[in-house]
């Protein structure tokens, strides 16, 4: 199993990293949160932690801390457009149920 980026997500991440001017890749993870269990973490990564599990997808490094991995293993991060709005979306096969907007979820 792995954590991957869709081609569109990888393109946007690479573009954002270039505009930002620093960073080794993107960090995906989860954290516990109040409303429906877990919430996603999606951040620029400035350096890899020794314990990180590192994947590579369309040329972009994806870093996941080992505590988060069981919750998001198999996830593909996608970049989508909804109307005029656009942003990233986690396609996470581990999710059993989620709150209305999907920002927090349960496994």
């Amino acid at each position, binding site marked *: 199993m792995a954590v991957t980026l869709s081609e569109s997500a990888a393109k946007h991440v690479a573009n954002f990293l270039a505009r930002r001017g620093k960073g080794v890749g993107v960090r995906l993870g989860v954290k516990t949160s109040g409303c429906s269990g877990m*919430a996603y973490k999606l951040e620029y990564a400035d350096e890899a932690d020794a314990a990180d599990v590192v994947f590579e997808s369309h040329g972009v490094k994806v870093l996941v801390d080992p505590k988060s991995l069981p919750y998001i293993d198999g996830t593909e991060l996608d970049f989508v457009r909804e109307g005029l709005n656009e942003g990233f979306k986690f396609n996470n096969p581990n999710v059993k149920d989620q709150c209305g907007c999907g920002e927090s979820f349960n496994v």
Partner: protein
Amino acid sequence: MALLQLAEPGQSAAPHEHRLAVGIDLGTTHSLVATVRHSLPECLPGEQCGILLPSIVRYLADGSVQVGREAAEHQATDSQNTIVSVKRFMGRGLADVEAGASKQYDFVDADGMVRINTVAGVKSPVEVSAEILKVLRQRAESRLGGELVGAVITVPAYFDDAQRQATKDAARLAGLNVLRLLNEPTAAAIAYGLDNETEGTYAVFDLGGGTFDFSVLKLSRGVFEVLATSGDAALGGDDFDQALAMWLREQGGASDLPPEDSRAVLVECRRVKEALSRASAEQAHVTLSDGRELCASVTREQFEALTAKLVAKTLTPVRKALRDAHLDVEDVKGVVLVGGATRMPQIRAAVEQHFGREPLTDIDPDKVVAIGAAIQANVLAGNRRDEDDWLLLDVIPLSLGIETMGGLVEKIVTRNSTIPTAKAQEFTTYKDGQTAMAIHVVQGERELVRDCRSLARFELRGIPPMAAGAARIRVTFQVDADGLLSVSARETGSGVEASITVKPSYGLSDDEIAGMLRAGFDHADADMRMRALREQQVEAQRMIEAVQSALAVDGDLLDAAECQAIHAALNELTALNAGDDARQIKTALDAMNKLTETFAARRMDKTIRAALAGQKVDDLKV
């Protein structure tokens, strides 16, 4: 699902907590809106047109309003009702306005601020500005997919209180929450990240379409102070178009032209001016209404010679502002260029020569003010709480949280958060009528309390009795710059409060911290299963207690067989709940839910009957 954005390391927003905020440059000729997405600032384009919205509002007889390009098309044909440069009238009285050149409108004197009589009635400059802001607000909300929590709006540094208040009123009228008004030169300096420097003096050279503003800013401890401002309210890029147009008309012997031809020549000269910023020569060509052709080749040298006087004119206010601030050009650490007209190479050269240093030009001069405002709005909306005000950063080595039902840890401040920090989360009561809550503060990365380190315990008492889940208890973790943790809990309805202070890093060596971290990683899988089990157990226990109390009150609603079935199911669920198979507990829980459906329905009917008993249908308020 809601679409996510890339955050800076350690700054992911909690669910539903990313706040949409924008920066708005409400300009004399153009206005624009910017925001920070994926931690990067960007200007938002309109649905059809580009990023720049012409600050032009046209009122129509039927009460409708046109804003931007659409209104600009009627500028000449419907000038009385098409308001341009409304910014010049903000917070101004009739005397101020009439002293200026603009006499094209039917001004009405009013208390405090001038009004304009249009075909749709008398409009104040505040209302006109609000129309522009409304368009920008809608643009941002459709681009960002949500409602804005607020906006930072920029104003010239020289705006007085009345003008600032008028700008705020316009924003409120447009449905915008003003986080702050920001001086335009300060916004430009923020866009270039100059606020990250420790101190220094900077100049902002802002040559727009029709106005020139020059400001000197002093930065100390991340705060900008405006030392001096000066400018020319009637000097801008449009004057360069005019100068070129005069020359072109002289060349073609077309000094006397009807208005529409004059405008056509101006439009062409503007295009040539913009082209000459990139090329060394450009062909000007206009076909006049009488069929004559106005044609000329313009070199950059010719254009520079034609406009040398205008360039020199910008330097007078520059000298004045520096003199007012008692500064020499050598004291200025950097010059920021703002406004589309600063794209002209002769302007850049003049600034460079005057200050003896290359001006800052990396950011598009049209966008720089809006971008600075957007960066500021992002901070004020709370999307980047820490980091900004503190140069010296320290981090929390292990997560801090509290114990929740089932011996689980709810992390409130996560590991590696920079301090000082403050995080709050809401919790609720577990049982009906619960009047106290024990708060157990723990530290560590594991999911179960028994695997983490206990830091402190305290109780919140005096919660008013309510149904389970109705109380709202806000638990706030605050870690100050010295690493001191204080935890407070407050029931938001009644205001009862309790708190405790601890020093979390006390007594933990680096080795112990490393060991606790490793344990967190090593047990990730087991912890995940354990969390799922405990959550299921808490849910089952809640169900058992609810059914038991329902049986005690309304057991008579069931016949013997039903009663027996529910009791049997209760026993099974209780037995399974003592075990460790989350799946079996879930199955039994679902079965229990189904089994008690009719019971719940009957209880509901009973309550409704009781509420309706002895009332006439006519008396019921539905």
